[in-house]
């Protein structure tokens, strides 16, 4: 997973996430990412870097366990190729009353 900043700080240190055993984010058609998407913007506009490009398989890798449900990815994908659903009830990000 690429780092956000030079000093390796990650915002995920400050977030609590209850991870489900099934993904709530899927790429609809990986071929579209490979053949039609030039910049692969999901790999940088996502605020917690859920998406990364896997050179070996030539696919977008989706690490749904990092998702904080900002809702941006389906709107930002230039090919409308991200299928994002709400995590099941109680799963996903849990913003705490006193931080964390």
């Amino acid at each position, binding site marked *: 997973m690429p780092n956000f*900043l030079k000093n390796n*700080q990650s915002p995920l240190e400050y*977030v609590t996430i209850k991870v489900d055993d099934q993904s709530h984010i899927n790429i609809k058609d990986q071929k579209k990412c490979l053949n039609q998407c030039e910049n692969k913007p999901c790999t940088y*506009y996502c*605020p917690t870097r859920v998406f990364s490009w896997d050179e070996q398989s030539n696919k977008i890798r989706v690490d749904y366990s990092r998702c904080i449900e900002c809702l941006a990815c389906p709107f930002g994908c230039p090919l409308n190729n991200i299928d994002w659903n709400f995590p099941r*009830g109680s799963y996903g990000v849990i*913003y705490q009353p006193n931080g964390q």
Partner: protein
Amino acid sequence: METDRYNAIIVGAGPAGSAAAIRLAQNDLSVALIERGERPGTKTMFGGSIYVEPTSRVIPEFWKDAPLERPLVTDEFWLLDRDSAVKVGFTGLKYKRSPYNKFSALRSKFDPWFAQQAVNEGAHLMTSTLVTDLVYEKTGLLSKKVAGVKLDSGEVIHADVVLLAEGASANLTEKAGLRGEIEKSSMFLYAKEELALPAEKIEARFNLEPDEGTNVGMIGYPTSGVAGKGGLWTNKESISLIVGGYLNQIIKKGVNPYQMISRFKAHPLVSRLIKGAETVAYKSRIIPKGGYESLPQLYDDGILVAGDAAVMISGRRGTDLAMLTGLYAADIIAQARAAEDHTSRILKGYEKKVMNSFFMKNIKKGKGGHKYQKEHPDTDYLLTKAANDAAYKFFKVGSKSSSEKMKKIRKEILDMQPVKKTVKDLYYALQDWSVF
């Protein structure tokens, strides 16, 4: 035994949903308030301020009881450049006393309290529950009406009417055919950090008494060249820092929201305010900035839409418009109950009420502003640059006469872009930030 049929089902226990639930329960309607988080407020964020006047319409004198941070007495607007800032501001100490004006707040504390008020009035709050679909019933040969919702457990619950207060992504609103696809040029993406700092330090740095708070809105530097906003709020023992901009521009400029906020924190005029503060939360959220053109249809047979799902955003107001639209929806639902008619015939009264509201006039007025920033994404940058360059010259003590100095400043601003555009840029920037 729980009844499986309600007068109203509300999807989402945010400001719109809870406000509606409070009002409906007060009117003795049976209400299910459904929240996908394990607690309200665990899935969302705002800057943020709670505005007193609209919130009082739901709960009079809520400040006596609600988990708020500080009454805001100071409002500032900074045009922030690399190592300077042109500042406009106002401090009014009347705002620290009843009836106040606005409070800084954290949604992870405020939302659970607000939903609890609905429970106290008799609403049934269901947490950890995701609504996956709407359920319809036939009302005629070709007509149908929303009659309930399906949950992620597979269970179906029924109601006379469903109010969608599901937030910005508005999946169910789209499924119901009330909203078309939203373009990314109409979406704002925000990132936020909450930074813990002892109260005495906050008060010393912002020149505040213990029962006073400040809010600073900023454009220019914070957004890394994206048309957007930065903001800072003082809480009791923490500082909220946000930065965000149009999603399409974030994509075009290749920036990441976490990098944006890290860069913002490192600005020399910001870093001194948060020095020694420890990050305790990182949050992010989209907000529809679409305004008038992207308003969905607000009703159909057996269904209404309120809050962010209905794109009720005007300038920096959103939370309060959510509450107000929640109240309007509740009033119409109560009326529909009295008339025993939950079809569009009665529910369309909600849209009429929203369209005639004071904030819809603002949303209509803001129409041009939104378009302007879409067409001129460099507005914030140029304006900030021009203002700061001019101010640097204006305050510089030198050997030029003041008329010579003003002449030079004027020339440099004119060289950068036509003055008419600068004035327009400023006008739209202020309008976008202003309360009204």
